């Protein structure tokens, strides 16, 4: 009798386990997902709101578009970076244009500025620079991508020496993959060829002389 009751109890427990197992597994998976989401949110700056960040970026893009030359806005919109050609060359016997420039910079959002030789594609250096707002008005010190690009563009075109002086210089490849830069230079060359016919003559292939300032 005891043996029969014991066997029945074991069978009952096994049956109950089989019935509840999918439900328990599902609950455990939900709890794990919830925990992971909490950890992800905890890692974000406090008050981070993806929607607000998207709106901020939209405003930043409009501001960038209103400040940089049309050709460079199109470059950023289509390629994701800006090219600034040798601002200092203006004070040393005339500004460079396209491949004639002694050097140029590629400006990426939230990445170092990359200096290179347009004629050869040789990478010269990376200038690590940021524009942190330590007041963290919305939980983060980081500007929207397009504001970061605009800040670099304004500082480079207005006072190249000052910006370079504030930055940390490194050999190419420290933060931006050289292969990526070479691919971007190829994309830029193709893009300029495609736009050469449609663009304003003064804007092709690079910046017009009066756009370049002596630092």
């Amino acid at each position, binding site marked *: 009798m005891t043996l029969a009751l014991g066997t029945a109890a074991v069978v009952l427990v096994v049956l109950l386990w089989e019935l509840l197992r999918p439900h328990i597994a599902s609950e455990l998976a939900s709890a794990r997902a919830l925990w992971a989401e909490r950890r992800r949110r905890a890692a974000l700056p406090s*008050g981070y709101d993806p929607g607000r960040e998207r709106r*901020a970026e939209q405003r930043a893009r409009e501001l960038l578009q209103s400040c940089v030359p049309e050709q460079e806005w199109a470059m950023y919109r289509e390629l994701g970076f800006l090219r600034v050609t040798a601002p200092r060359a203006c004070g040393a016997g005339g500004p460079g244009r396209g491949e004639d420039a002694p050097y140029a910079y590629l400006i990426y959002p939230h990445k170092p500025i990359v200096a290179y030789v347009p004629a050869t594609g040789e990478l010269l250096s990376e200038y690590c620079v940021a524009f*942190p707002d330590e007041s963290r008005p*919305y939980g983060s010190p980081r500007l*929207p991508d397009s504001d970061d690009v605009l800040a670099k563009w304004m500082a480079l075109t207005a006072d190249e020496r000052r910006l370079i002086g504030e*930055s940390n210089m490194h050999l190419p490849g420290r933060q931006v993959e050289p292969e990526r830069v070479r691919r971007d230079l190829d994309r830029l060359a193709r893009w300029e060829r495609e736009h050469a016919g449609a663009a304003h003559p003064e804007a092709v292939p690079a910046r017009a002389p*009066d756009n370049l300032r002596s630092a």
Partner: protein
Amino acid sequence: MKPGHGEIVLAEGDVEVPEQERELIEAFRRELDAGMWAAVPIETAGGRREAELVKSFDEVPREAERVIFFPRAAGG
């Protein structure tokens, strides 16, 4: 320029109106005192766009439509 927001209008006014000019100067000083850089987007005679960094209100061209403040550069 503000993280998480983008462009924020700090002050608006006409530099030809003394009272408004004073407000603009105060806003300008406030931002520079907070450690911001100030840039004026300009268009050259040739129609090209560029920027000019200014360190005092006197350096802002009278015909400038706006001054953009952004956090000062730091080595990244």
